[in-house]
């Protein structure tokens, strides 16, 4: 297939020759591995003796290319991270594309390449997939669904649930917040600022594995994607009926993100991340976990940002830089820019 000016046609999804050439020349070329190459209707997978973690996520991001990644890379990171924060080691991935008629094949290839590279980086194998093409206007360029399977050790099973969280536990994050949401907003055509902000989009499974292998003090993990850090912490406070206290000066926020948030009236705590994990750990283990995280390139700016407390159960309170305190609420609806 020559990928110069060619575009996706409805016939790329019709099950016939053209579709098979797309699968063979684009998807299999980049995703090739023994399981996928079998091209069976269902992949047969070996999982060892551990329990299985299974998750799925759909990606409809606009724009499909943004500083720091594209929808292909994101569709691996998102699912890998959902597995990793449940304490699982990602093993297998399914990838389904819904393509809009007219999508340039060159763009599809760039997305497929990024997807393949990220899967390799994360060590997850793409074992099955699907492609559909819809009429122009029936989807926005490309939608991707991925589902992931991972294996979980018995001792890590509690991590996704957080039932061992106690007052005094420490809250750690692996770096700056709000980068993904602001990078995507900056990449939208209607947004006339040029920003240096780059999405943090990354697979966190290796960093998380290093943490779990070096410490048994992890009580809970969650990736603060849509709704941001504020939403994850509020869910946690509600679920545990405990309070959460965070320290504004300790929150890592890049100058670029701070600047856009100041301009538009957003709170970085509400902005999406795609390469961040919030870890709740025992006070004894917190420092050594922080050290382990800082040794990974995705955790260089890791920081302790707060703690679990018995006060104000169900609520997240922020100690601000000026000595005041305020409640941090979950996000309501989409963050909208303020008028003035």
């Amino acid at each position: 297939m020559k990928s110069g000016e060619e575009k996706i046609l409805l016939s790329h999804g019709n099950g016939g020759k053209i579709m098979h050439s797309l699968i063979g020349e684009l998807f299999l070329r980049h995703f090739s591995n023994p399981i996928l190459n079998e091209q069976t209707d269902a992949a047969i997978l070996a999982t060892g003796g551990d329990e299985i973690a299974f998750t799925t996520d759909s990606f409809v991001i606009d724009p499909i290319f943004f500083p720091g990644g594209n929808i292909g890379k994101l569709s691996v990171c998102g699912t890998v991270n959902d597995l990793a924060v449940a304490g699982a080691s990602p093993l297998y991935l399914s990838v389904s594309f819904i393509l809009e008629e007219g999508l340039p094949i060159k763009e599809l290839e760039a997305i497929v390449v990024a997807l393949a590279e990220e899967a390799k980086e994360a060590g997850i194998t793409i074992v099955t997939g699907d492609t559909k093409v819809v009429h122009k206007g029936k989807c926005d360029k490309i939608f991707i669904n991925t589902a992931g399977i991972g294996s979980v050790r018995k001792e890590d099973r509690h991590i996704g649930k957080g039932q061992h969280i106690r007052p005094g536990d420490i809250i750690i994050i692996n770096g700056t917040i709000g980068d993904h949401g602001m990078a995507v907003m900056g990449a939208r055509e209607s947004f006339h600022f040029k920003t240096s902000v780059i999405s943090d989009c990354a697979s966190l499974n290796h960093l998380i594995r290093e943490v779990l292998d070096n410490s048994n003090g992890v009580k809970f993990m969650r990736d603060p994607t849509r709704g941001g850090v504020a939403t994850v912490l509020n869910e946690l406070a509600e679920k545990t009926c405990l309070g959460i206290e965070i320290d504004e000066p300790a929150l890592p926020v890049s100058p670029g993100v701070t600047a856009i948030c100041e301009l538009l009236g957003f709170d970085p705590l509400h902005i999406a991340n795609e390469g961040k994990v919030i870890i709740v750990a025992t006070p004894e283990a917190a420092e050594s976990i922080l050290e382990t995280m800082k040794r990974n390139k995705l955790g260089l700016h890791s920081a302790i940002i707060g703690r679990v407390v018995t006060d104000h159960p169900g609520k997240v309170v922020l100690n601000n830089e000026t000595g005041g305190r305020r409640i941090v609420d979950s996000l309501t609806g989409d963050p909208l820019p303020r008028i003035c």
Partner: protein
Amino acid sequence: MKYVGEYRKKELILAVAEELKRVSKKDITLMEVCGGHTMAIHRFGLPALLPPNVKLLSGPGCPVCVSSQYFIDLAIAFCKVPGVIITTYGDLIRVPGSGSSLEKEKANGEDIRIVYSVLESVELARSNPDRKVIFLGIGFETTAPATAAAILEAKKAGLTNFFVISAHKVMPPVMKALVAEGVKIDGFLAPGHVSAITGTAIYNDLATVCKLGVVIAGFEPVDMMQAILMLVKQFEEGTPKVEIQYQRVVHHEGNKIAQAVLDEVFELQDDRWRGLGVIPGSGLKIREQFSAFDAEKHFRITVPEPADPAGCICGSILRGLKTPEQCGLFATTCTPADPVGACMVSGEGTCATYYKYRS
């Protein structure tokens, strides 16, 4: 962050708070008339730093909150005209009208788009010659010059498909109306960005006739604390006047270019304020010579006069007569996720701010 961090220094804030405690003797009530100020006061927890005799009231300064329900109903009626694209600043889309909101109409398939600048709307009109683009003009002297500039730009470009519904308002008449109504205020914290455009003279009457201090303040906690200190000093000394705290941005004469653009396109009119009714000379209407860009003249659509939502006390809150906690709907029936009154909708609305930062 430069130009922000300096004005959030804890030591500076506490030093001003100490001075305030030393100087302030008499009970004093100050009103801020800008949503940005309301946000800053609560976000930085300033009330806890003030002496107990210094009370802050939130006035009608959030442009989304003071936009009348009639205006929202009108915008909803316009969005249903075939071929129309409605453009708006973000937080207006959730404001409830009589039976719907722009957000709900968007979900119904109407073409409603959020813009960051009114000039995007002009661009949209240029690139969609077969569509009619209507911009919802809201805001005070801060955003109105940009709308005026957009109308001039559309005229220059010869566009015949760009329109504005103007609900733009000016600040001083509502401040005077509150004083005339007898709301107990001893001084105003005036919004810095309004005066960046208008200068300071717009408040002279308040100082000379009403004998009230007006301090034009910036939006960081040090700015706010210093402005409060300046007002308290004026009050203690009995010397009400118009002063500028936000000197790094505001000059007495304001931005003459913006003033000229504003005056070329708009003239004053009596205008509706949510919860406050009609205030004489408080709104900005598009001048006759630019009527080709006035959506209300072009489309000639009217909507019935809406009734205020039952139980909602937005009017009293905007007047500073009541606080959100005194409203029976606050945080029960009326929440940011499902607002009844406009004060709960905008991130800068008094109720939304109280809800968000309540502790």
